[in-house]
């Protein structure tokens, strides 16, 4: 029996005196594709940063594949990929320099996949040699996704990965996620406010509210359940959007 990709028990995090995570329990199993939902400021980014060991917590325990995120072995680190909401690191590098830098950090790197993504996602030769700070928001976000996929992680954590992409770019991203990531059995956790995208790829959703996972379940069951609970002969189905409003309000 292998350890869960993500296991959080009683995790707390305060900013000043305001609790953001408040005794949060969460487990994400191998191969789950789960959407993390919550209002603005609910703490989705904080949750992701804490679980990856990028922020200290005030209490509770977290393990990634059975290891503490603040003391990950290199082998386990190589199993994890992360796309932050906004990254302003490495802005002086060009895309090719950035990818070469990250390639050197990992034991495994799929050059063919990275090259394919660069080509499909509009990174022509001039763009590959342009400093990252001069790329558009969408180009930076696409590069960040390519960087996170290069070492073929088993756990992929995506924080608003498509916020800067147009509808065509979002669709390309979804197809890539399905084709090369979900099909390989990768565990995926991602947050987004674009519920229609989420519905296409996530099988499960988790709602973060008041510092805890308020509701988690199979997306189809949650929509079906919302429809049947309305009951009394009146069929009043709820969309994911309506469910979101109801759960997070």
């Amino acid at each position, binding site marked *: 029996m292998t350890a869960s990709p993500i296991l959080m028990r009683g995790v707390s995090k305060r900013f000043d005196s305001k609790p953001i995570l408040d005794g949060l329990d969460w487990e994400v199993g191998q191969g789950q*594709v789960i959407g993390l939902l919550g209002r603005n400021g609910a703490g989705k980014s904080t949750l992701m940063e804490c679980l990856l060991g990028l922020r200290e917590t005030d209490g509770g325990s977290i393990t990634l594949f059975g290891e503490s995120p603040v003391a990950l072995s290199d082998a386990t680190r190589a199993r994890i990929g992360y796309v932050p909401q906004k990254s302003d690191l490495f802005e002086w590098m060009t895309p090719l320099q950035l990818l070469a830098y990250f390639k050197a950090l990992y034991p495994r790197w799929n050059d063919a996949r990275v090259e394919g993504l660069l080509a499909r996602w509009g990174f022509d030769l001039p763009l590959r040699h342009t400093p990252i700070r001069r790329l558009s928001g969408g180009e930076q976000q696409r590069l960040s996704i390519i960087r996170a996929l290069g070492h073929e992680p088993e756990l992929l954590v995506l924080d608003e990965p498509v916020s800067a992409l147009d509808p065509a770019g979002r*669709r390309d991203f*979804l*197809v890539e996620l*399905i*084709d090369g990531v*979900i*099909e390989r059995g990768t565990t995926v956790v991602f947050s987004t406010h674009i*519920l*229609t*995208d989420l*519905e*296409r*790829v*996530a*099988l499960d959703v988790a709602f973060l509210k008041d510092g805890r996972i308020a509701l988690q379940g199979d*997306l*189809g069951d949650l*929509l*079906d359940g*919302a*429809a049947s609970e309305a009951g009394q002969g009146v*069929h*009043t*189905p*709820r*969309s*994911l*959007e*309506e469910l979101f409003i109801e759960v997070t309000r």
Partner: protein
Amino acid sequence: MSLPTPQLFSIVAGSAEPIYRQLVDQVRRLVAGRQLVPGDTLPSVREVALQLAVNPMTVSKAYGLLELEGVLERRRGIGMVVAAHTGNTGDPGDRAALLRPTLERAAREARELELDPATVLSLFTQILKESA
């Protein structure tokens, strides 16, 4: 016989109908309306998933449910085909029942728009004539 694969299915994300159920309903309607006949091959899970940009597990779930219902059957080396005995396809009453969820949705929206039944029915009649 293989099907014209270009976009056999279409889905609407963000509706109250989970995606797997939209797929199930579409196959049922296509079979009931004889656009799909016994022996027809359905596109693979992977093809549908990539075409619609949905999780392959969602497509598998839909195909699995249709197999349980006896609408589809799994053939080794071929994939999913429309089953020979699909039961209720002949009866117009049964076929009409498949339209009910869509009409219920339309009826709800009509009430929300405060349209009277006569207006809605005449509009529907007109649409039926247009597409005939």
